[in-house]
């Protein structure tokens, strides 16, 4: 996908201020770069935001570990991150047949089980979900907030895909907004940290490594340590911070770049939404595969209903069946997708994670190859 012109133009000027004199660059680009250059001395948020907050929650070694409730399926880097911080992962299962919605009963179950062997203190939410693409409705968000409040859990809300919502009739509502609309009883007490990033916004600037977190109701004495921990990282890369500012503060109607900027974003969003729909329909139609619609995010997470021979072969090779599937797909068709077991699935169900934020031609190619591979596999014509 192409980077957004406005963002890259401003970055280029910030990097090489000689370009401030370049009349070929739009005026608003040069003005914005000028302003940002003047501001380059400010405070900042470190990039390892998740680690900073999780670290604070970790307990003393040797004593009962802190637990964090985490979604299954969920982001694949989460288990390693929690492990690194010495924190126990407490998985809660999302409901596949309800479009991967949260199950309040399962939250309670997970919590009860966890209390036996760790000290659960936080709950991690991914909304829109990674890898599921589920976008929570207001009621679900309220239930989670009430649950967190009642069970004294810190809310860690990963909202990095908030700009990628394409489901019909579904809108992204931030946890913070819902929290504050629930009245003082909640908005003044529930402790929450929400996260956003330039990697997953429409910009897709993963390589710049920047994001932000907003902290709500945290004990001010603890906040001091958040700042201390962030200091040792010095700062988030400045190029990333600049991109973040542009994300939060895009061209307005009347600015020279407004039209181009808006067109480019609309193109990215419609591509994503059309891709998601097209791919979901195609995959869902394949025998031995079922795929929930993604309401948001940049992935699809179809379920594989594999024949028993494949499951046997996987057992013999000592890998998970979905890993075997992905290995064969890679070798046979040159297509790389994620295996469901990486995202926490341990229930004997198998899934794939596929990225839909790609040019439409690429997606067509991927679907063609994946479809052909899958059909061969299902009809038993793919050899071990």
């Amino acid at each position, binding site marked *: *996908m192409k*980077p957004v*012109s406005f963002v*890259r*133009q401003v*970055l*280029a*000027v910030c*990097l*090489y201020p*000689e*370009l401030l004199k*370049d009349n070929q660059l739009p005026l608003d680009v040069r003005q914005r770069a000028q302003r940002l250059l003047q501001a*380059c*001395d400010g405070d900042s948020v470190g*990039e390892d935001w998740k680690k900073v907050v999780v*670290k*604070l*929650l*970790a*307990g003393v*070694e040797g004593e009962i570990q802190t637990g964090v409730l985490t979604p299954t399926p969920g982001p694949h*880097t989460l288990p390693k991150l929690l492990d*690194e911080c010495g924190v126990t992962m407490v998985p809660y299962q999302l409901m596949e047949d309800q479009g991967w919605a949260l199950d309040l009963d399962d939250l*309670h179950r997970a919590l*009860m089980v966890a209390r036996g062997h760790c000290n659960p*203190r*936080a709950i991690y939410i991914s909304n829109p979900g990674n890898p599921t693409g589920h976008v929570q409705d207001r009621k679900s968000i309220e239930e989670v907030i*009430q*649950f967190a*409040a*009642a*069970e*004294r859990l*810190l809310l860690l809300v990963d909202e990095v895909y908030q700009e990628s919502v394409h489901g019909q009739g579904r809108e992204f509502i931030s946890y913070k907004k819902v929290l504050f609309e629930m009245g003082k*009883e909640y908005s003044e*007490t529930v*402790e929450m940290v929400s996260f956003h990033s330039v*990697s997953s916004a429409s910009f*897709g600037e*993963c*390589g*710049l*490594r920047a994001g932000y977190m907003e902290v709500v109701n*945290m*004990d001010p*004495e*603890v906040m001091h*340590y958040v700042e*201390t*921990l962030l*200091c*040792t*990282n*010095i*700062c*988030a*890369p*400045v*190029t990333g911070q600049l991109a973040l500012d542009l994300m939060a503060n895009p061209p307005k109607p009347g600015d020279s770049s407004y039209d181009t900027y808006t067109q480019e974003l609309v193109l990215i969003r419609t591509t994503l939404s059309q891709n998601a729909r097209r791919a979901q329909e195609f995959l869902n139609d394949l025998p031995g595969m079922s795929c929930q619609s993604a309401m948001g995010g940049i992935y699809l997470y179809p379920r594989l209903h594999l024949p028993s021979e494949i499951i046997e072969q996987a057992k013999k090779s000592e890998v998970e069946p979905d890993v075997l599937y992905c290995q064969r797909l890679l070798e046979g068709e040159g297509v790389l997708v994620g295996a469901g077991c990486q995202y926490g699935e341990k229930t004997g169900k198998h899934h794939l994670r596929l990225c839909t934020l790609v040019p439409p031609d690429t997606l067509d190619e991927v679907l063609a190859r994946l479809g052909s591979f899958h059909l061969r596999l299902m009809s038993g014509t793919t050899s071990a």
Partner: protein
Amino acid sequence: MSQQAVNGVQSRGKVLTLDNMNPNVKQVYYAVRGPIVQRAVQIEKELKEGVKKPFTEVIKANIGDAHAMGQKPVTFLRQVLALCSYPELLEDTKFPEDAKKRARRILEACGGHSIGAYSASQGIECIRQDVARYIEKRDGGISSDPDNIFLSTGASDAIVTMLKLLVCGEGRDRTGVMISIPQYPLYSAALADLGAVQINYYLDEDKCWGLDVTELKRSLNAARQHCNPRVLCIINPGNPTGQVQSRQCIEDVIRFAKEEHLFLMADEVYQDNVYAEGCEFHSFKKVLFEMGPEYSNTVEMASFHSTSKCYMGECGFRGGYMEIINMDPEVKAQLIKLVSVRLCPPVPGQALLDLVVNPPQPDEPSYATFMKERTAVLAALAEKAKITEQIFNTVPGITCNPVQGAMYTFPRITLPQKAIDKAKAEGQAPDMLYCMRLLEEEGICLVPGSGFGQREGTFHFRMTILPPTEKLKIVLQKISAFHLRFTQEFS
């Protein structure tokens, strides 16, 4: 349903408080951005709001941030970075061919030809190759394997990653890590965070902050009583002290590490910042290999470099790398896994690093300007190092070792007993009291020596030599005058 849920939300204390947060984090201090800097930022806000003070600006000589103190970026570096950010500029005739060539090469190595794409977790391959070639050239041809190069988010990231790998064990078996006193507080902060045991070895102030193997031995033997020492960290050129270790010293340290079975971590981010006559940077790797296979095949080591210092000063880009030597292959696999969690170092920083290790050559159009700018920066630093030492040494009560390298001076200050007593009564380190006063009276922000570690009963401050020469002279005079006043007031 839990009892709490049935009762609904009650007004109890917070879930996350000082009492129930990670206790290790409470031991983390980073003096370079600690309370004195917070006060400095506050004063800046007050100045902006029009509050009258004895000065019109705060001079932040606390952190090695060259650009923030007015150092200009190197043209060639910024041209290539601009081209990488907005490749349409490749059509622009304003940019020289050698800049375009490098930009194209970097973009080609990036996913989708964009610096916005994630890179491989270990860093972009062709850049690692360039880094390996740079190291080979620097070290007189000793080979460097690109697979042993890990690009990182500044050197800090790589240092913390290595420490994470090294720290293990419980109680008396807990890993001990040797660091110099004075040290750069990233190390003490990381060790506190990891719950590792910090083992202090003292640099000798009377011998220009030299390192003595006898002191290393003393410190190690004492430490063996209560922990399992496994790592030796050394910063060369030193921070905050600026000493440039002699070749002999480096050999001694390597020999010591081998004898005592220690993992060496060599922080060499200031390797281009060497000013004093008779001083030369010797990379730990080069010396190791020149000591023969008995050492070069066995001593395990990681050396670190960064784009934040030297002549570039590009702190904000967060570029850096580490080279690992003789690491157990199974541990290396774990390292690769560990770095994958953070996905990748910032790509603009990787691109910048590529230019640092692959600068314009004599036959290229940008060479002349590049060399002029590079030389100017390093020459200015050398001059400022000398002026600083000279001026401070004229002040009774301030003793300043020669600033052989890096970007700082760490002079020793004699404080009157009354001042020491006052500080202690207020629960403050005496040099913190001194620095806070200096900040309030003159608007100059330094970091007290207590933030870096110092021998008991001695006091220091760390000041950067980064302000432009004329401003630096004024700063030096103001500090000198302040010192005399302070001494007078508390006598």
